[in-house]
């Protein structure tokens, strides 16, 4: 039986599957809207309650995870005190430090190689923590988009729906977030 049907039927193991899969991601996402881990945990628990009580109303028009994240973001926004700066999008933030290009805009200090090195480290398990912290260090709005798109694997449409942002803003935030994470990996593992 599908997870949704099992949830509707009140199967508590299905609920455990869902919580194990998404709880940690939801805490991370909620943390970007609220001032503390404790508030994030409250928001997530409140979301789970909403999910349990509302599963009968879930119509399946969006995916289950999109529905989950959408409930979470709505509740996190209500609980959040952080002012969401709409001007943040307009702030200039180059993907690569301008000093790495010459006057004509060509690479002066080209990207250092790191892909193979990162692959080796990933296999030995050392890299996962660094990538995770690089994502956690992103500015909140970039972190939200990168987490949903690249860690959770939502589509751009799903992310726009969950965060209530335009496709254009989603791409700008994604671009800045990914560019910063790439730079962290280059700094950490790069060799000229």
């Amino acid at each position, binding site marked *: 039986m599908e997870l949704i049907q099992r949830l509707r039927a*009140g199967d*508590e193991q299905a*609920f*455990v599957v869902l*919580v*194990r*899969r*998404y*709880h*940690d*991601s939801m805490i991370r996402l909620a943390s970007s809207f609220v001032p503390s881990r404790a508030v994030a945990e409250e928001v997530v*628990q409140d979301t*789970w*309650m909403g999910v*349990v*009580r509302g599963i009968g109303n879930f119509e399946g028009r969006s995916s289950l995870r999109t529905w989950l994240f959408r409930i979470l973001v709505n509740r996190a926004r209500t609980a959040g005190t952080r002012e969401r700066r709409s001007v943040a999008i307009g702030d200039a933030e*180059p*993907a*690569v430090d*301008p000093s790495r*290009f010459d006057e*004509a*805009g*060509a*690479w002066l200090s*080209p*990207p250092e*190689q*790191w*892909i193979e090195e*990162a692959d080796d480290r*990933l296999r030995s398990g050392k*890299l*996962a923590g660094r*990538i*995770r912290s690089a*994502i956690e260090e992103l500015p909140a709005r970039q972190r939200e988009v*990168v987490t949903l798109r*690249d*860690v959770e*694997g939502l589509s*751009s449409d799903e992310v726009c729906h969950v965060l209530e942002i335009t496709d254009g803003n989603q*791409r700008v935030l*994604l*671009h800045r977030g*990914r*560019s910063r*994470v*790439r730079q962290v*990996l*280059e700094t950490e593992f790069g060799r000229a």
Partner: protein
Amino acid sequence: MRLGIMARRREIVCQQAVELVTDYLEGALPSAARRRFERHLAGCPHCTEYLAQMRATIELAGRVTADDLTPQMQDEFIALYRQWRAEPEPPGD
């Protein structure tokens, strides 16, 4: 003045190319801009490497796994679940 120089004026430079990577990967570049970006890559090993690194960054982010619940948290969630199912409407809501 060579014609080649005139033609090149419309080409992009590396510093512009790195800003187009996400739009390119998202399929959001208009076709002329997409062709210009690909022409730049064809002649620029550094930007080709940069694009590969952005792809690798995305792929590595996708391998970040969530922390699992502790057995104690699982028990707590099961208890909460039973409570929520038992009283479908929160008191005073």
